């Protein structure tokens, strides 16, 4: 899935998806749950707390 498609499904900009991937931005719980919902994966499989 492209960053643009994910961004559109989650309702954020592509730059925000890039920032999340690069660990430059921690998304809100709402966005995190939306991302896990798009991938049909539990939250802990997508995000890790450092």
């Amino acid at each position: 899935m492209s960053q643009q498609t994910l961004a559109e499904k989650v309702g954020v900009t592509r730059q925000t998806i890039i920032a999340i991937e690069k660990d430059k931005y921690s998304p809100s719980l709402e966005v995190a749950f939306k991302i896990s919902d798009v991938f049909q994966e539990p939250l802990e499989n997508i995000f890790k707390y450092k």
Partner: protein
Amino acid sequence: MDMSYKEKSLLASLGATLLLFGWYLYGAFSSLPLNPELPGFLEFIILIVGFVILEAMIQSFLAIKNKSQLEDERDKLIEKTSSRYSYGFLVVCIWVSMIQILLDARFDNHLMLTTPYGMFHFLLLFFVLSEVIRFATQLCHYRKGV
């Protein structure tokens, strides 16, 4: 460089602010020591009208060029964080101005800052600088993360 609509818009606002207000304030502060009571009302109105027209033109152009003008939670967080820096700077400047006026009244110094024309331009300078800080810190947060 991959920039979002918001970043391009900020960069344009920063450029327009620096260009127009920089030009105006440079002229005003150059003539201030020579003529501290010079009224700058007409020039100021021209500046404001010019700034509004330039900003409207640039922002309209950017809106046409960019399909999505979506503003998400990251944009709002960056805006909020940058506004804090800008507000802090403005508060310090206002306090400095107030102390300056108080000292001037107490010791009868009659410095450039306390003439109406001087005071107006110093306050305008502080306001413009706080706006520049707001735009610059937002751009910085977009690049380095927040």
